[in-house]
């Protein structure tokens, strides 16, 4: 089990690292897909099969393809246009912040008393059914908000991406 975990983690971290460092955007996207796969693998390992399937369907099936379309539609700008780095040219600052964060996380995790906790056996059976039930009972309010959110995002994305007619 440890071997499986380590292999999957290596794939995931590698995918993430490549996705944020490669120069060519399409290569980045491929690395990102690898990363999504790794996460989905972890979900299966954690007995969250339904989420693993959702992860593959939504992230690899929809988000990755969407990003691919965006890359193709804006192919010429892979350089500097379309938004500057949030910190301007200070890449070292970003790396510094992220390294500090990762280091601090490791220290905190080691100091936390949760670190050695082992799972006490999750059940896989009937999870999907249970999720379906919960969605219309306990979590019905977030579900409804989600519906409005998706409508808003749909309308918004269409309005933004729509080409403006010239001078009416």
């Amino acid at each position: 089990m440890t071997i499986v975990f380590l292999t999957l983690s290596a794939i995931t971290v590698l995918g993430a690292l490549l996705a944020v460092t490669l120069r060519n955007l399409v290569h980045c996207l491929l690395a990102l897909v690898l990363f999504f796969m790794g996460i989905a693998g972890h979900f299966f390992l954690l007995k969250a099969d339904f989420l693993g399937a959702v992860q593959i369907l939504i992230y690899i099936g929809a988000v990755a393809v969407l990003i691919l379309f965006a890359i193709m539609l804006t192919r010429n700008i892979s350089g500097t246009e379309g938004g500057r780095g949030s910190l301007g040219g200070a890449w070292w600052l970003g790396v510094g912040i992220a390294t500090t964060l990762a280091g601090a996380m490791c220290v905190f995790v080691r100091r936390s008393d949760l670190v050695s906790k082992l799972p006490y056996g999750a059940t896989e059976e009937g999870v999907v059914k249970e999720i379906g039930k919960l969605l219309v009972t306990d979590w019905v309010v977030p579900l409804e908000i989600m519906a409005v959110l998706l409508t808003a995002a749909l309308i918004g994305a269409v309005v933004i991406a729509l080409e403006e007619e010239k001078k009416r």
Partner: protein
Amino acid sequence: MSVPLGYYLILGGVLFAIGLCGALTRKNAIAVLMSIEIMFNAAILNFVVFWYYLHNGALTGQMFALFAIAVAAAESAVGLALVISVYRHYKSVDVNEMRSLKG
């Protein structure tokens, strides 16, 4: 048999940091968006991990992860639309300038 919770927490933290690093340093907006997706996934992984290790009596963690995935997808759709719109503007601004120069 499973690995201790700490392994997973470190994995989540490292992935989040990698995503943050990319989000802060990349120049291309689409690349920033991809980095943000990595950050989202690290958080979602954390939810599932906590559910599996500590709170699997209820499905709250899975539910949170499910909603987060849906929200992230909607958000990336809006984000990519914005990227395309900005891109189109740059292009059309360029074209207009060229035309006005020609007189």
